[in-house]
């Protein structure tokens, strides 16, 4: 009788693999954001805490999308925003909302990159460091990251709903 009670309990317990998949996905996504921030702050063989925004600003400006004040604001803030987002994703804090923010951010990046690619702008992507040329591979890579971010977001919502 005791055995049948245990087996009944086991059969209703939710499977562990969705949680494990979500953990792997969010940690991977978080690490990618941390690496993206790192490459914007550490390049040419050293840390650039005092002047990283000049270099990153030049890369952002080549997209011809923002006024100068917008370029400066984004160049100064985005690496630190990526650090915060990466840390929150890895820690799993507010995962549904950090997932939405990460997806939205990647969607904005891909839109800007696709526009630049269609306009045949020969520019630097600015995604991971300042000297990575924008091309089909960068679009595919960032597209894959968007899929990952969406999967993490949907997974976080589904698991929350199931709880």
């Amino acid at each position, binding site marked *: 009788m005791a055995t049948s009670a245990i087996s009944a309990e086991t059969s209703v317990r939710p499977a562990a693999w969705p949680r494990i998949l979500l953990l792997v996905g969010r940690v991977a996504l978080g690490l990618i954001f*941390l690496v993206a921030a790192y490459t914007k702050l*550490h390049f*040419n*063989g*050293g*840390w650039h805490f005092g*002047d990283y925004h*000049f*270099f990153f*600003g*030049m*890369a952002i*400006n*080549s997209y011809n999308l923002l006024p*100068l004040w917008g*370029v400066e604001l984004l160049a100064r803030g985005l690496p630190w925003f990526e650090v915060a987002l990466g*840390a*929150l994703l*890895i*820690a*799993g*804090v507010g995962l549904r909302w950090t997932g939405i923010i990460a997806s939205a951010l990647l969607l904005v990046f891909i839109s800007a990159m696709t526009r630049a690619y269609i306009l045949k702008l*020969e*520019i*630097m992507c*600015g995604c991971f460091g*300042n*000297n990575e*040329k924008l091309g089909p591979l960068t679009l595919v890579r960032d597209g894959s990251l968007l899929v990952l971010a969406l999967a993490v977001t949907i997974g976080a919502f589904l698991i929350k709903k199931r709880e």
Partner: protein
Amino acid sequence: MKLHPISRIGILLIVAMAVVSSGSARPKSQASKDAAPSPAPASSSAMSRKAIGQPGAPITMEVFGDFQCPACRNFFEVTVKQVIDDYVVPGKVLLVHRDFPLEMHPYARQAARLANAAAELGQFEAIERALYDHQDAWSTKGNIEEVVATSFAPAQFKKFQSYEAAHINEINASIERDRMLGVQRNVNQTPTVFVTSKGKTEALPGGGVDYKLLKQYFDYLLRQ
């Protein structure tokens, strides 16, 4: 054991700081291996021939360019001319041209040879302006000399041609030296700019830079 989310972030930050610290404390040889190579030792005469400005300027701006490349022309017209007026003329920046003719541009080497000949005769700034200002007129047919000659006195232009003919091997070698320096520094497009200040060389994002942003960067370097 279930950790509070704030504790998780704290642990994460401590780990990140440890990783960052270990990265900073890596052996110097590794750091210098990753660093952008410092400018190749060039003799002062070689440096001055394809340079504009004072050799003792606090900032050196090297531009790896191709005279037939439209992006280089745009960069020259929009950014470099302002840099010359605002920073090179007052002695704050030494502007150095490095030849990086791309295979896709059939007349780029021919233009570079003429520019090198003029540079040897002390006319680099004038020939650079003439080549870029009239790029549209010569880049389709390759009639460089016919087009560029209009910017110089006939006797002076003849000197460029004579010098080029007499020193063709040295000129080709000079262009190749610049190109190889670019390859060493991972230049993969033109224009690519390197800025050296206080002995430290930084590669700027390739493809040219907006003047306002470059000005901010130069002002920052000059304040250091």
